[in-house]
């Protein structure tokens, strides 16, 4: 992924742009259906889609203007205007939302003085955008500037964060001259789960940066989302060129230099020599020895890993904590591809389908359709060409299971795919992965290459007659493409409009051929089923939901992270025993499950077992596996509004009920949240929600009202309070205000912190907030040491004045 180089673009002559375009077109192709890869390549090159580059497409390819406009404006990845040099992405995922992402976004806009109708600063240095989810939910609120991820961003620290970024960026630019000469040696991944952060991973991050520079080592330092083991923190993974991972739990800042030096060689001999001397001297002085870092075993350093792992069961994430993502030998050593070998040796495709049916495996993408049934339909077709698509278009805000599986267990997904292909007679496979997951794309591509070398994919797999070709398609940013027919439309080079079912893709899918579309997690369960037997697999889980489910546990939870649990475990056990309870000792209010398609399950019903059907009965949905814990300080109406504003943006726009209906629901919710609604509006909202659910044509529209319907069902009182002008949690800004009590000492700290000067600077006097100027960002509250600034409902204030 090339860094932004729009500055250079301005200097490119028309001739140069055309030359670049011709190279891209020659590489990608010129047929109608390559439009998405083509536009992605252009954006990679120019940082946006320049008009003259687009004209070249019309001249040289089959793609016409109507198709191009239709597609390029549908997918959110594509930009039609140049952005600033650095791109700030403010995560607006569920976990970030409940932790105040909007305030963070507003702070950036204020701090950078970005004008209302623009997203770019005047000096073209920064552009800002909200993104659906960065997949670092345990770090919420999260901001990504270019490649750097910042967790737990406080609105008040935004200024510091920007200057820190500029500083470190300057330092890097100075280094790039040198660094460019060296080959990229690998990467260091820093687990930045909430627990990592709490134990000082930010210091580790800075230390990694400075020491890497000092040593002249060019490694990618990536802050990654919580990898699950939040108890052994801070934790860094050193990923070497071959994909092997060396994990260092409980690292100290003082050990960083040793670790880097041990694994990576700096560019020049002289530098190497110098480094070893410096290190020697350093060690001598600090008395930190190498022994501290490496020679102790992980277990010794960490002690026993406690309950966080004890309730879990690893099927999709088998090999958890030690398997190097791209080490094929290691995977094979741990029974990898044993299932595929077994299947091919036995050569009974129908038996495989029967096994999957017996196992009771249901699609993990959300709908929960029995996987074996789908396979049976595809297998029964006599057509020559059949497709198998791995659906990795994980777009739910608050979910990052698929990303983690693709990044960490690429071979397992590939193996599952080849087994299914063998069982169904599919000859072409496609990995459909969101472009927002560059690491996953890169890993899968590399894993496929390595598999091809060993004849695990491609022609005559493992010496048999069976051939299966696999390619990778990068999704371009549309939640609706998680819907299988929309996904197929996008591969065909169209906007992601879902098609009416039937016909189901299993009968008539990509290019009209039978197409099996399975979610990443579903595929990753297949090898286990084959290896251990369908009956063994079916022992785990409930009557109608077998096996395990991976969840992204986030929100107001003590130990968030990625977890894999057996079906049938209760939500309470997940929260209390795995997650360690609600953060900050607050009361549990509800659990939001299944993202925008799911619903909110109230605390008193959290004894419900994890199960497709029991969730559905409650009006929620398994969804793809986001699990956001909400505490008493979260406003349920605001949560419902949040999800609806997401689906409103992500609706494809084809059908009336989804395009207009969801918008009208959102209008009503906005009114309710601003305190200007009437009691009838609640009924109106409910009626509309029921109709949108009933009359929408695809999964997105049919499930979009769920967050509203479940909150109406379990928290109707809260809606009624809003109508009466009261949001008890103070999340609905229009209904609350900040006031300063008489205990104020007049220290002026709040006045200095206020970004809009709503507090007059009057030392030693009780301060006062100018309500008209106040933007309710809450910075003053954080700043006040005497807790004299409180949130009160606007209405209550009115009553108080009247007294």
């Amino acid at each position, binding site marked *: 992924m090339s860094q932004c180089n729009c500055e250079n673009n301005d200097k490119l002559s028309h001739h140069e742009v055309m030359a670049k375009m011709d190279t891209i077109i020659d590489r990608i192709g010129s047929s109608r259906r390559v439009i998405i890869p083509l536009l992605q390549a252009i954006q990679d090159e120019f940082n946006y889609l320049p008009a003259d580059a687009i004209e070249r497409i019309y001249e040289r390819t089959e793609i016409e203007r109507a198709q191009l406009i*239709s597609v390029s404006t549908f997918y959110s990845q594509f930009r039609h205007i140049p952005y600033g040099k650095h791109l700030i992405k403010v995560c607006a995922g569920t976990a970030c939302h409940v932790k105040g992402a909007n305030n963070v976004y507003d702070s950036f806009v204020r701090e950078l003085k970005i004008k209302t109708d623009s997203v770019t600063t005047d000096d073209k240095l920064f552009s800002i955008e909200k993104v659906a989810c960065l997949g670092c939910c345990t770090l919420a609120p999260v901001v990504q500037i270019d490649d750097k991820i910042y967790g737990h961003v406080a609105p008040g620290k935004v200024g510091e964060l920007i200057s820190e970024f500029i500083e470190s960026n300057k330092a890097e630019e100075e280094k790039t001259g040198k660094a460019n000469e060296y080959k990229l040696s690998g990467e260091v991944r820093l687990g930045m789960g909430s627990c990592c952060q709490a134990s000082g991973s930010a210091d580790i991050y800075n230390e990694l940066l400075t020491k890497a520079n000092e040593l002249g080592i060019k490694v990618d330092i990536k802050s990654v989302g919580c990898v699950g083991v939040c108890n052994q923190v801070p934790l860094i993974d050193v990923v070497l060129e071959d994909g092997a991972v060396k994990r260092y739990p409980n690292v100290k800042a003082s050990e960083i230099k040793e670790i880097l030096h041990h694994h990576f060689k700096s560019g020049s001999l002289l530098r190497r020599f110098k480094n070893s001397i410096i290190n020697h001297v350093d060690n001598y002085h600090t008395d930190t020895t190498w022994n501290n870092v490496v020679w102790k075993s992980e277990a010794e350093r960490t002690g026993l890993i406690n309950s966080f792992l004890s309730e879990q069961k690893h099927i999709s994430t088998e090999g958890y904590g030690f398997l190097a993502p791209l080490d094929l030998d290691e995977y094979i050593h741990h029974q990898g591809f044993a299932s595929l070998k077994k299947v091919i040796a036995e050569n009974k495709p129908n038996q495989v389908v029967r096994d999957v049916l017996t196992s009771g495996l249901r699609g993990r993408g959300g709908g929960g359709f029995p996987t074996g049934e789908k396979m049976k339909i595809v297998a029964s077709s006599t057509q020559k060409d059949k497709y198998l698509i791995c659906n990795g278009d994980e777009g739910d805000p608050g979910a990052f299971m698929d990303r983690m599986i693709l990044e960490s267990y690429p071979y397992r997904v590939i193996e599952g795919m080849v087994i299914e292909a063998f069982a169904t007679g599919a000859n072409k496979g496609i990995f459909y992965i969101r472009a927002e997951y560059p690491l996953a794309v890169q890993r899968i591509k590399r894993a496929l290459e390595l598999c091809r070398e060993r004849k695990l994919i491609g022609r005559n797999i493992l010496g048999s007659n069976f051939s299966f070709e696999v390619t990778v398609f990068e999704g371009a940013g549309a939640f609706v493409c998680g819907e299988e027919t929309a996904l197929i439309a996008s591969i065909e080079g169209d906007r992601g409009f879902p098609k009416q079912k039937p016909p189901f893709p299993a009968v008539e899918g990509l290019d009209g051929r039978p197409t099996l579309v399975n979610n990443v997690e579903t595929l990753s369960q297949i090898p286990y089923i084959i290896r251990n037997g369908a009956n063994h697999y079916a022992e785990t889980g409930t009557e109608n939901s077998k096996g395990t489910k991976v969840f992204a546990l986030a929100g107001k939870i003590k130990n968030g992270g990625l977890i894999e649990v057996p079906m049938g475990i209760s939500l309470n056990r997940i929260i209390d025993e795995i997650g360690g309870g609600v953060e900050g000792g607050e009361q549990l209010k509800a659990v939001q499950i299944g993202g925008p398609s799911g619903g909110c399950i109230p605390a008193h019903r959290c004894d419900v077992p994890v199960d497709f059907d029991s969730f559905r009965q409650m009006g929620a949905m398994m969804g793809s596996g986001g699990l956001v814990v909400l505490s008493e300080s979260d406003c349920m109406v605001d949560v419902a509004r949040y999800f609806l504003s997401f689906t409103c943006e992500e609706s494809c726009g084809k059908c009336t009920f989804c395009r207009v209906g969801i918008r009208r629901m959102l*209008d009503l919710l906005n009114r309710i949240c601003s305190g200007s609604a009437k009691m009838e509006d609640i009924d109106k909202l409910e009626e509309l929600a029921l109709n949108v659910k009933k009359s929408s044509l695809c999964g997105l529209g049919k499930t979009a009202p769920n967050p509203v319907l479940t909150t109406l069902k379990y928290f109707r009182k809260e809606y009624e309070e809003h109508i009466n002008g009261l949001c008890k949690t103070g999340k609905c800004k229009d209904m609350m205000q900040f006031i300063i009590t008489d205990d104020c000492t007049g220290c002026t700290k709040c006045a200095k912190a206020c970004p809009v000067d709503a507090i007059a600077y009057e030392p030693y006097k009780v301060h006062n907030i100018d309500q008209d100027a106040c933007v309710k960002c809450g910075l003053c509250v954080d700043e006040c040491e005497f807790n004299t600034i409180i949130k009160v409902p606007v209405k209550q204030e009115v009553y108080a004045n009247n007294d």
Partner: protein
Amino acid sequence: MQITINDKIIDVQGQDTLLKIARREGFEIPSLCWSKDARHKSSCMVCAVKDLSSGQIIPSCTSKPVEGMRIDTQSEEVMQVRTLSLELLLSDHRADCEAPCSLVCPSKLDIERMLNYYDKGQKEKAFGLIKHAFDLPKLACENCKAPCEKACRRGSIDTPVTIRKIIKELTKVVDATKVDEIENVAIDKTKFQSRLGRFCESEKARLKETVSTPSNCLHCACAGKSACQLRTHATTHKIKRPGYDMSSALQVMSRIKINDTMYFEPSKCIRCGLCVYNSDNGFTFKNRGFQMEVNLPEENKKNIRVELASLCPTGALYIVEN
């Protein structure tokens, strides 16, 4: 194959859609986004029926029958879905069926049509249209309180069209005896009346800037109203006002000239896509979600055939008779 529609058992052969079968059997089902022999994708849900076997609401225009299917086309539930889909479409349809001036005229004059002739310089025709209402030389407007001018949308932008002054001018410049009367069709008030609502500030500024006809008239009346199916269905479903707030992502009254006779008015469009699916590199969709619009790039105007206008179920794509 046998299916049941509203308790009537029907033998079905071939690959006809439920809509076609039901209509053939005499059951009335409205439709908007479907047009005979045209390419389409179901989207409007005005043709909704209920599949009693699965309990699902489905669009009859694309759904095919399956053995033993039981379909309901007329229950209250189905009617409610259709009405709601129309209401939702109308809440995003910021346009007037009739001009406010014509609607309020006590003498039932089609003022907007008169101003239309006037603006085209056809003053005789303009006069001919209103001639019947005046016992010339006495002017009927003389003692009228001119609700037309109060209702005039131009008034919210700058100043209302000076309707009475224009009529007076017509009586002066046109020789009444030489002008043939043109039939003035009074507005049928039993029909559904879509109303545009208020202009927002940016719309006011744009219209003030861009609309400069001799009379200053904005020509609120819909040029495609006679063939508008949206209006027809809204009338039969007894809709008075859409039950939801009006708002749209589209600019009102932006009229795009496609060629000598064809115009496209995006704010009247219901995004059914018939013009998109049935033109070759012509109309296209732009954006997604509520922001999705039908767009016609300048370069593609040459690819638009006149016949396309007849596919549009609303007055968004229309032909102007000269």
